[in-house]
Structures are given as C-alpha cells and as structure tokens.
C-alpha cells in the first residue's frame, strides 16, 4: 500500500476507469514527493544552502559527534594540578560554547540556531516576529503557512515561483518538476493516455534518475514507469512544481458541436432525431464527464499534495491556470467546475491563451498548443520542503 493514494479523494468513491486515471497520477505524485524528500537530505533547495547541507550531511555521517566537546574532554588530565585543571576546564567550556555555535546540537541539527532571515524568509510579518529560528518555521502554526497568500503566481509574466526562501524558492532548480498527463476519450469515457509520449515528467536529472529508480524498485511504480517519459526540465520551470492535464485537441474539435447540441436540447425539452443520427454516425463522447473528471483529479492532486512527504505544511495546489488555443467553448465548460472545487481563490485562477506564454515554457507544458487547438490545465503545486529532509 506504499503508493496507495490518500487525501481528499477516496478511491472507493471513484468508479471505473476514472479511478485508475486518478490513481496513476496520484501514485506518481506520491513517488515524486517521496523521492524529493529523500534527496532533500543530501541536496539543498537553494544554492546558498550548499554549505549548510554539506555540514549537515557530514554531521549525520559522523554520527552527530560534537568535535569541540570531544576535544574538551580529551584535554582534561586528572593528574595535573587542580589549578591547571580549573583553568583548562574554563578554556574548554569556552571552546565548547564556541563549538556549539559552529557545530550542532545532537539530534537537533543547527536549524534552531540560525534565523529565518538567513534562509531567505521574506514573509511580510518576518520583521515583527523577532528573532525567529528556522526550526520554528517548521511548526504547523508558523508563518510559512500564510506565505502563499501574500505572493501570487503570474503565468503571463512567467513568474511561476514568487518565493525566495530556502523552503519554497527552490532556486537551485533541483526539485522543480512538470508532470504532464494527457486525457482522451475511450468509448464514452475519458481516460488517461497510457503512452510515454502523453505522460511526461520533466525535472532535473537528479530527480528523474532517483524517481526512475524508486518506481522500478516497487511493484506499483514498475507498472507505472512504462507509461512515463522522463525529460530534463527547461531551466525556466526548474523551480516550479506543476501538474499539467492536457486535453487532446482533435477530439474536442470533432465532437464539440454535437455534444453541445445534445446537452442543450434536453434542457429546452426538445428532441431531435437528426442529432441522434449524427451521434450514432460519429464517435460517441460523453463530454459532460470531462469537467467532472478534471475536477476530481484537481481535488485528488490537491489532497495528495497537501499531505505530501516533503513537508506537512504544504498548501496543496497554489494556483490553477487554463491555457488554451482557440478553445474558448471548452474552457467555458471546464472553468466553472474547476472554480467550484474551491481549491484556489479567484485571484489564483487564471485563463491564458497559449500565444501569451513564452514558447519555451509552452513547449514544456504542452508543445502542441502553439500549433494546434487544445486545452491544458496547469495545477501549480506548493513547492514547500522541509530543510534537511528527514533530520527534522
């Protein structure tokens, strides 16, 4: 049950193929977060944290030895005169004190003795919070929980990660990822396209290699890994965490009008045998189920990411953006349902036309949107990670 999805979406509440669609996405998200949590033990989220992480890692390798303390113990010699001992003990005490600030207290790491500002915290309230330690940022009631409401993601400006701290800034570009899943119709159902080209995870080589290893090392992952293509992420998106739900364009174009008519007629108490005939002649698409499925996936992703392995302070999905290319009609179908999920407030919900987004970013999200009609729903995830991974 290692990869069993949890969170808001209860597997038992889902039915049929939708269940497996959502499970696949959530299971992969779980894997991603676990891999990142593991990597965050050894690799810093921010380049400025390199020195800290090296010390922290060395500290753990050494088994938490406090060198200064050990040195002071070795220095004491019971055979020397009492006066000498006293003098030495004084000296050792000062060395120990100095050592504790340089080294770390056993079991605590040195998160307790470095301040929040040192890790780049730029929360508006930081100046009123006194000398807040980094370890206190990791409390469930800390200011990190409200930080997301102060800084907005702006798709049009290409600002996918407005944070600058070690926890959310992810400026080293190691832990950003874009997980793209494609949806298509299968009979009257919408399902996830299980081909490597349609399911792609872009990230740093480090995350991708570790993720591949992680997935291959367990049964569920091994089943999933064959559906996924791994690709190195573009540096513009290297500090963001995003799930993209791509809706295949040709399916929408072919069936849009018939589907719309089918839904309009019953609401006006009208019947058309011609429309029925059209429906029988063309591919039968249950168009109503798409927004429903998207809503369900968004809720699932939000729940999963709120409870991810990297931090228990995650806010799940921070922003939702619908990118489309000449698909206003479909967007109109999707938008209200996604808004109704109340995962994000209106200020974090946006609809953008593909030509307004830089081509490199668009290529990473959905390359086809630049050339073909289509819609992609971007779920921007909270990039928060605990500093030092498992240590805290």
């Amino acid at each position, binding site marked *: 049950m290692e990869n069993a999805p949890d969170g808001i979406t209860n597997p038992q509440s889902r039915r049929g193929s939708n269940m497996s669609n959502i499970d696949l996405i959530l299971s992969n998200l779980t894997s991603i977060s676990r891999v990142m949590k593991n990597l965050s033990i050894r690799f810093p989220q921010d380049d400025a944290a390199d020195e800290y992480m090296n010390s922290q*890692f060395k500290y753990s390798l050494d088994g938490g030895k406090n060198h200064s303390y050990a040195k002071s113990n070795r220095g004491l010699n019971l055979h020397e005169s009492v006066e000498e001992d006293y003098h030495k003990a004084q000296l050792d005490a000062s060395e120990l004190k100095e050592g504790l600030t340089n080294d770390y207290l056993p079991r605590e790491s040195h998160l307790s003795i470095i301040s929040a500002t040192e890790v780049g915290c730029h929360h508006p309230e930081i100046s009123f919070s006194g000398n807040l330690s980094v370890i206190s940022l990791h409390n469930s009631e800390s200011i990190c929980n409200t930080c997301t409401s102060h800084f907005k993601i702006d798709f049009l400006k290409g600002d996918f990660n407005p944070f600058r701290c070690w926890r959310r800034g992810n400026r080293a570009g190691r832990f950003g990822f874009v997980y793209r899943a494609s949806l298509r119709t299968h009979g009257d159902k919408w399902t996830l396209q299980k081909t490597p080209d349609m399911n792609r995870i872009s990230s740093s080589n480090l995350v991708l290699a570790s993720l591949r290893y992680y997935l291959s*090392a367990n049964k569920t992952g091994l089943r999933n890994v064959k559906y996924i293509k791994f690709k190195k992420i573009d540096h513009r998106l290297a500090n963001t965490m995003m799930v993209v739900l791509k809706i295949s364009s040709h399916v929408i174009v072919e069936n849009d009008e018939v589907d719309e008519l089918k839904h309009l007629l019953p609401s006006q108490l009208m019947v058309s045998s011609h429309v029925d005939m059209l429906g029988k002649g063309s591919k039968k698409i249950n168009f109503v189920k798409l927004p429903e499925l998207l809503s369900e996936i968004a809720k699932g992703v939000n729940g999963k990411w709120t409870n991810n392995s990297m931090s228990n302070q995650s806010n799940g999905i921070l922003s939702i953006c619908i990118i489309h290319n000449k698909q206003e009609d479909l967007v109109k179908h999707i938008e209200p349902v996604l808004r109704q999920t109340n995962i994000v407030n209106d200020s974090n919900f946006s609809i953008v036309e593909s030509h307004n987004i830089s081509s490199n970013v668009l290529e990473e999200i959905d390359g086809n949107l630049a050339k073909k009609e289509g819609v992609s729903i971007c779920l921007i995830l909270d990039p928060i990670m605990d500093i030092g991974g498992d240590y805290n």
Partner: protein
Amino acid sequence: MGRVRVLLQKISEYSIMIIEKCKKFSDWVTSFDLNVVWLNRVFLLLLVTYILGGLTNSIIGPFDGLDVASALTFSFISLIAGHLVSGIVANDSRTSIPLFLVTLIFYGLFILLTVRGIELHIWPEVYRQLLGHLSICLLAFWCGIISGNMKSPPWMGNLLFKQHILPVLKSRGIKFMHWNSDGVLSIVEIEDFHPIWFEDEDMVKVNGSQLDEYSPVQIDEKNGLLINPGIKQVLQIMSTFPPLWTTSMKRHFELLEAGSERFSWLNLLQLLIPYKPSSLAQDRYSIATNAIGIDIEGLRYRFSWPLPDGLNLSDTNHHSKPILHYFLETNSNLSIIGRDNKTQDIIDIEKDITNSLFPRLSSKQKSTTFLLRSFTHLLLVLRQEMDISKGSRKEQCRRSIIDVSQYFQSFDFMGDLPGDNQQAFFVSMEKWIMWVEQSLSQPATVFLRLHDILSEEINSGHFDENTSIKQILAGLLMNCTNLVIENAAFRPKDRIENDIIANFSTEVGNKRTVSMLSGIWRMLLMASLIRNPEEVVI
C-alpha cells in the same frame, strides 16, 4: 686414583672433541656438491684413450690416411654440437637411446677391430675413411656431451624422485592436480606423471608444463570427491630420506611447494573471490575447511584449499596489472606474441566467470570483466588489512568484505552497466591500497566526495543519455545514504543505559563506520566503471 680420574677426564674431552670433528667432517662431506659429471668425463676419456691409443695402433685402423684438416673440422663441429645438446641427451631418452645404440655399434666395431674380427685393410678406401670420420665425429660428439651440463644433483634428484617418491605417493593414494596457465584444472595419475629435468632452465617439467603448475592432492572419495592439498604428506615423505637425497631433490620440492602456494592464490582469485566472496571474511581455518564445487573432466569435485600463507601485496610487480593475470602468467615462459595470446586466454577465463555470475549482463562483458578485477583487488586489500589490523579496524574490514560481496553478487539484477562501447576501467591493487587507507582513516570525507562525484555524473548531460546508468547511480546514492543515516541515528539515552550489550558505543560507532565504508566501496566500484580511477580524487 686422582691421576686415573684426570686421565679419564682428558680422554673423555678428547673423545668429545674428536667426535665433534668427525661430525663436522661428515657434515662437510654431506654438504659437498659432488659433481658426478666429472667422474663420467674421466671414465669416458680413459676408456677412449685405452681403446683407441692402446689397441688400434697395431692394425690398419680406420684413421689411417685420413685428411687431418677435414677430420679436425668435423670433429670440432661434432664437439660443439654435442656440447649444446648435452642437457637434452642426458635427460631425454628419446634422444639418448638412439645415440646409445649408435655408440654401441661403434663399440662393437672397434672391439672387433681390436681382436682383428674385421679385416679393415680389404675395405675400399672410401668406406674406411668414412668409418674413420664417423668414429671421430662420434667421439667428438661424446666429448661435447660430457663437457656440457650433462648431469647434476637435480638430474639425479629427478631420477630419485621418479623411482622413490612417486611410488610412495601412489601407495598413499596421492595424485597430482594440474592448474595450467589457462586456468584449466585436471587430475593427473601418478602413472602419467613423468617429470623431466631441464638443466639449462633449472626446471622440472611434466608433459611440457613446469612442475610448479602441479600440486599433490588427496582425493577423499567417501566425502564427495573432496580435494585436499597433499603437500604436507610429500614433505613428510621427503623428511624420511637421507640428506644427500633430499639435497638432490631440493629443486623438486621447492617447485612443489611453490605450486601449492600458487594453487592457494589461484583458488582465491579464480574460485573463492568470484563465487564465494563473503567467505573471505572468515578466519583462515574456516576457509581452509570450506569446499567449493568444481568440474574436472566431467566430474564434480569439492575443492578445499587454504589461503596463501601471507597476502603480501607489497610486491609492485602485480600492482598495475590484474592479479589473476599475474599469477597465471608468471609461470609461462613465453615470447611477447605468446604472452599476448596467453593474456587473451586469461581474459577468456574472466569472461567465463562473469558470464556465469552475471548472465543478465552478458552483453556487457568488458564492463563485468573490469568490475570483477576491481572487486578482486578490493577484496584482497581488505583481507590483507583484516589480517594485519586489530580491534575496530579489523572488524570494519571484515564487515566490509561481507557487504561488498553481497553488493557484487547483486550486480546481475541491476539490469544495466556502462556499455562496452564506452571506455571502461578497473581499479589496480595500488589504487585500492591507497583508497582503502584513506577510507578507513576518513570515511565521512571520502563518502561525501564520492557522493558529489556521482551526483555530478547524474546531473551531467541530458537525461536521455544513459538513462539506466543514471538511474542505477541514483539508486546507489539513495541506498548508501539511507543506510548511513539509519545507522547514524541516535538511540534514546534510556535505551542505551538499559542495553545489556557491553561496549555498546563501540558497536554503534562500528556500525555507522561500516555503513559508510560499504557505501564507499559500492560507489568506488561504480565510479570505476564510468571514470578513469586516476581521475577519481578522494
């Protein structure tokens, strides 16, 4: 009475002195290297002088009217030829028996001439001269033979070995085992064991192979064809012979002892390390009593052999080359081309081993072969360190051997390794000696550096390039780090206080260090497959 007592005392002192002098003389005589060749020379020359000078002058001999210049020329050539083939004639019956027959014919002829059994004066001049020339040539040839290295104590020793040692070995059920320079094993019955002494090479050979490629073995058929070393029995038999005999057979026993030591090394390098590596963590007695299954000529034997007396790895000759090559090639006396062929044969042995160990990686033979070499060298260095160390360091080496052995055997399940199209490397013994010393001294630092080196390797290039290798490296880093973190975790104070295990803190420290060392050996093995070890600075 007093005088008698003094007299008796003096007699006693003189007696002791005389006995000591006699003993010294006896020792001197015994230790004297009696060169029997000279006895033969004197005897033969005397015989020839008597026969030719004393008797044939009275008749018309075969030498009458011979052209002096041609006779001298032929005799000189024959003399040189005889001198050169002296050793072969003396040791190889295929050459010596025809020569003896020819000589016997000439003896007969000359005896007949001496008693006037042949009327040589009625022979045509040509025949008489031909006989004369042939006689001179034969004589000169024999002179050449006896002036060469025809016989020596080892030659005699070889005779003694064949006539006195081999029958005793046979009666005690001892056989010989041949581990040839291609790494192939065979059992040789005593009846088929024919040692030949080669004076020029100072070597005993059996069926064209040096004696030190053989070792006496005892095969316990009741215990599932268990093969045990038989060198102790041979040495025990040797000790029952007179000193003069053992001196003559000294070279034979030296070679047999060297052969037994060579078997120990080859058993270690060709069988134990590839197939039962973790057994190297056991004590010497356990290794010597444990058996490993081997197939010889279609039969399944259990081979049990002790470790080499000392894993003295300070010999710089084998530092830069694979040690298996060193021990298999050392005995082969080959030209450069022959040595190249031999190296190819040894590479084939390594490929056979890796194919049986890593059937899933059969397409990566170069990598697996190099991996085997690096692993072999690492295990030898760790075992040597285990032998010479004490306390925690010894324990860390022991556990390292067990861990890295398990890791080595798991390579087959990795699915991939750096391909043969890439340049692969193996870590030399010299490099491992340096790395092991550094790692044992500063495990945390070395671990961190290797961690960074491999992370850099994962991060380089596009992900599509060597995807599976990057995945393996990432898994390796993840596992190594997690292992260290788990073992580095602090235990609550109350649990430590209640722990009944004495010296608990040492054990915790050992466990953490061992987990770090395990990570280091794993990362170094992997790093050696993707980077030149000379470029891996730890």
